[in-house]
């Protein structure tokens, strides 16, 4: 068993939205939708990301510029070398039933390989503002923005609730801000609908030994990052708290403000 980065080259870079780009690499790899990979900028640091595009010859990762690592990544150019390892964790369990996919912000990118494998899912694509929406041309979706600059004004949770008045879903998949996912969970519980969420935590090793990504007794990088309703019901920290890099328990507000 070996966990070492493989060096790949950036093939092309596509602008997707404000501070969001897709990086394409010549790299063939099998994985389940919802599993994640860890990118290494040699000498700088590593961070986990999901694959958002895959065809015979290449993969793409759609990445939001949020910190030091992604800032450096956004300065890289075609031909530059980067390390990749993975896939890690447990992905989505694909059901042959009527599904709804709820993506918040760049969370939509994490769901896109899943969407390609689902049969006619209903998609909700939401973001803060028009400039933050991704994949408007790629998927036919209910669009919503917090400020109403495109689509319905409001949150993905509002659109989801309204959809439930007229439609029935057997399973819901979601990825986005945890506060949003928690609300989707509450709505699904009320309507007795199975939910699968893709959770984000501070992950270092990616293979379940360093213990930094715990959410209650779940090792998010290994038991997750996708968790279903049955597990979520036992995870009191979901939507409430997360561990900082030191292991300190923090509110989500403190965690995201890190």
């Amino acid at each position, binding site marked *: 068993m070996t966990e*070492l980065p493989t060096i790949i080259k950036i093939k092309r870079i596509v602008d997707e939205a404000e501070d969001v780009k897709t990086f394409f690499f010549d790299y063939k790899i099998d994985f389940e939708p919802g599993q994640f990979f860890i990118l290494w900028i040699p000498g700088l640091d590593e961070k986990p990301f999901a694959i958002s595009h895959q065809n015979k010859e290449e993969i793409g990762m759609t990445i939001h510029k949020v910190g030091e690592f992604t800032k450096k990544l956004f300065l890289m150019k075609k031909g530059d070398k980067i390390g990749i390892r993975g896939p890690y964790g447990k992905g989505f369990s694909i059901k042959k039933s009527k599904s709804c996919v709820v993506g918040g912000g760049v969370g939509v990118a994490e769901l896109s390989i899943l969407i390609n494998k689902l049969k006619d899912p209903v998609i909700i694509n939401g973001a803060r503002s028009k400039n933050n929406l991704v994949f408007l041309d790629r998927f036919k979706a209910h669009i919503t923005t917090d400020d109403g600059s495109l689509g319905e004004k409001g949150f993905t949770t509002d659109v989801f609730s309204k959809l439930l008045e007229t439609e029935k879903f057997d399973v819901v998949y979601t990825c986005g801000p945890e506060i949003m996912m928690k609300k989707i969970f509450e709505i699904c519980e009320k309507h007795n609908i199975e939910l699968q969420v893709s959770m984000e935590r501070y992950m270092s090793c990616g293979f379940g030994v*360093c213990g930094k990504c715990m959410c209650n007794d779940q090792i998010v990088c290994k038991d997750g990052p996708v968790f279903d309703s049955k597990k979520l019901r036992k995870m009191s920290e979901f939507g409430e708290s997360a561990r900082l890099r*030191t292991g300190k328990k923090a509110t989500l507000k403190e965690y995201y403000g890190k």
Partner: protein
Amino acid sequence: MLKTRISKIELDNPTILASGILGVTKDSLKRVIQNGAGAVTTKSISKEPRKGHKSPIILTEGDFMLNAVGISNPGVGEASKEFSALKELKAPVFGSIVGTTPEEFVEVLQGFSKNDFSAIEVPLSCPHTPGYGTMAGQGTPEATHKITSAIRDATKLPLIIKLSPNTQDLSKVAKAAEEAGADAICAVNSLGPGMKINIDVKKPVLGFGVGGLTGPALRPIAVRCVFDIYKSVDIPIIGTGGVTYGRDAIEMLMAGASAVGVGTAVYYREVNVFKKICDEMESWMKENNYTKIEQLIGAVHD
């Protein structure tokens, strides 16, 4: 059949979660206990919070793992809240403490005065963190004696001193710990440090450049260390280093250990490796007509 003891601590079985694997949170310790560990050790806690080294902090290649986590931990203030009400857990919990001076070890210990640890483990042997362990010279017989004495004076809890395999003086170091009042020895910490270079980018892979080596590749060295220490001290030994299967655990006991540390094996065989090792030990013991762990401890010295 698998019951054993370290000093006055009774263990249902000899597998102990080694410090540094999981162990950041109380819930993760609980999960390891549910998966069969006879005892668990927390991640090492320092006086102040530490972010640790930049990533990658851990890599593996075949039969070894290299890590340079850099003792990331929330500091004793937060950790004492995290590891509260440990009696709820169904196995003994060992608190691992680190410091840069003897006084600082004692301060961390005192920060845990209200926690229900069954023992205190003191690694004087971390090979990848400036200011601590072997990088600060804590692994010499003199430093070991000084630090162990200071902690001994400050607690009545069983005291386990964790040693580095990187010394010619291992028996002397173990003896120094015993003379200073240690109740047990944990041998060994990770070896090295070692280095893994990515030749395509001409850079070391680990963020810190170098890291301690663990996993099956470390096992023969750990077994030899336990063998040597068993001859030089009378206090019990926790044999740690590459224990992955039941047979490895039995080998470690025969070399002189009373219990075994299990860490990197969580990577090779998942978190239920504790139960797997215990089941494998039991069936080997039955096949070979052993009924008690005591019959195995130090058997190779007979």
